[in-house]
């Protein structure tokens, strides 16, 4: 008997949120004109809300036997979800971008000895990340050179595959 593939981290929670959203759609559609005439403004939205609920329930029922994606229960899954979709650099830069977007043009952040322009924090945060990326690229080039020295004559694609296999498992 084949085992169903494990769900992705947060998949069930996302589907439950969509089910909740579908229920909200159905309720909002009902508020437009209730179960009034079949050609009222809310009739077609009601139908759509019902379709969304039914299909999402069928998706969730289909997933009930799929194993959890990570060990450690809900907390482990949450950790895996955050690590996959919200890595620190992405969160940091998103927050800086949103802050910069919301700050009126020409805003300067106050600090003890004067002020700093609003774009300065973003640039300061970018510097160590750029340095880390440069180190990563240099390492990668080193890996490719090592593979080329050991096995000359490989195509670029195979050289890359071998380097990934040897150095990154």
């Amino acid at each position: 008997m084949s085992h169903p593939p494990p769900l992705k981290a947060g998949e069930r929670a996302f589907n439950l949120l969509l089910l909740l959203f579908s229920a909200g759609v159905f309720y909002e559609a009902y508020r437009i004109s209730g179960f009034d005439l079949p050609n009222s403004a809310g009739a077609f939205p009601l139908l759509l809300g019902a379709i969304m609920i039914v299909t999402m329930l069928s998706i969730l029922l289909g997933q009930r036997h799929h194993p959890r994606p990570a060990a450690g229960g809900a907390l482990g899954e949450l950790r895996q979800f955050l690590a996959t979709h919200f890595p620190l650099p992405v969160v940091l830069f998103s927050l800086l971008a949103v802050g910069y977007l919301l700050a009126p043009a020409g805003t300067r952040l106050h600090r003890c000895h004067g002020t700093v322009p609003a774009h300065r924090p973003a640039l300061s945060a970018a510097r160590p990340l750029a340095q880390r990326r440069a180190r990563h690229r240099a390492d990668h080039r080193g890996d490719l050179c090592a593979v080329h020295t050991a096995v000359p004559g490989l195509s670029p694609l195979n050289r890359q595959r071998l380097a990934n296999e040897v150095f990154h498992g």
Partner: protein
Amino acid sequence: MATAFDGYPLAQQGEAGRAIGLSTVMSVIGGLLGTLVLASVAPYLADMALEFAPRDYFLIAALGLLLVGSLAAESLSRGIFAAALGAVIGLVGLDPVTADTRFTLGSMQLMGGIHYVVVMIGMYGVAEAFFQLHQLDATPVRQKVDKILPSLSLVLRFLPLSIRTSLIGVIVGALPGTGGDIASLFAYDHAKRTVKKPSKPFGEGAYEGLVAPETANNAAVGGAYVPMLTLGMPGDAVTAIIIGALTIHGLNPGPMLMIETPYIFWFTVGNLALANLFLLLFGLTGIKLFAKVVELPKAILIPLILVLCVVGTYSLNGSMTEVYWMLGFGLLGYFMKVYRFQMGPVILGVILGPLMDKSYRQAMASVGNDSAAFVSELFPTRCRWC
């Protein structure tokens, strides 16, 4: 997608150049055949479409949504859910008949509705940029591209197959909601079943596996224009965007377009033919240059895409609210993509939702709000045109 089944093995065997050249020539043949069918069929279909009742429009739109839902997504439930979600987004705002507010949550900004271009940019552009963040460190593999021009004998050898798969492409493309991806999968399947002696086994670098999806993919473009120009229904996501472009210029795609502004129809046909000729010219000469775009580091490409998405959305109505909506749809699209929901049904739902709502209510009103009569009108026991 179907092209990669045999295109990738060919590239691994060092035949990337010839594969690209052959698929370019076959794409042009498919595209020109699709344009020819559009020019010859669309005027007759437009005449017929003048007799279409609201129930017919409702049925065709429902067929389109069901088709795209079932064929584009991993499971039927996911596809139908995505299409219904798109239709709900399309219905946000004031009802055009009764001026009731629908899904506005009391917000003034939502009363004007959500522009579908905002949804498209968010779900295709921003979501894809977010998705690519996972492969930020991936180093692009440089592929040697040479010997691009295919020989005449090679082209002539695959001509019968390309004509057959072009016809498949046109027919599948003309179904509302389908498009090139689905057409190419049908064509690949056809080639697998009908070609007894392929150049190599399918999946291991057969030229037939390259020719079939490429011709069907481009022929589907002409096919997708047929329902768009004659019925005002997009054949795929691209024609959905073109409907928006025509509307911005005060044109109303549908049967009346052929009567009121026939020059627009012939202008479109001419453009499609010209585009195919330019594809041949630039495809064969510029492929080495285009390959460089793939090698562009993602750390540069992703911010560029995001900036263009913001600029494109803001330029629609000069509204920052729409930019925030676009980013929100980008985030939703990202998670939908991660959890295996397709974007195509959502986009088509946004376009077809209001059309289905309008035709459903007109059809229901025409039978005096009698649900049983509505159902029997939808599925008549004899053909109305016989």
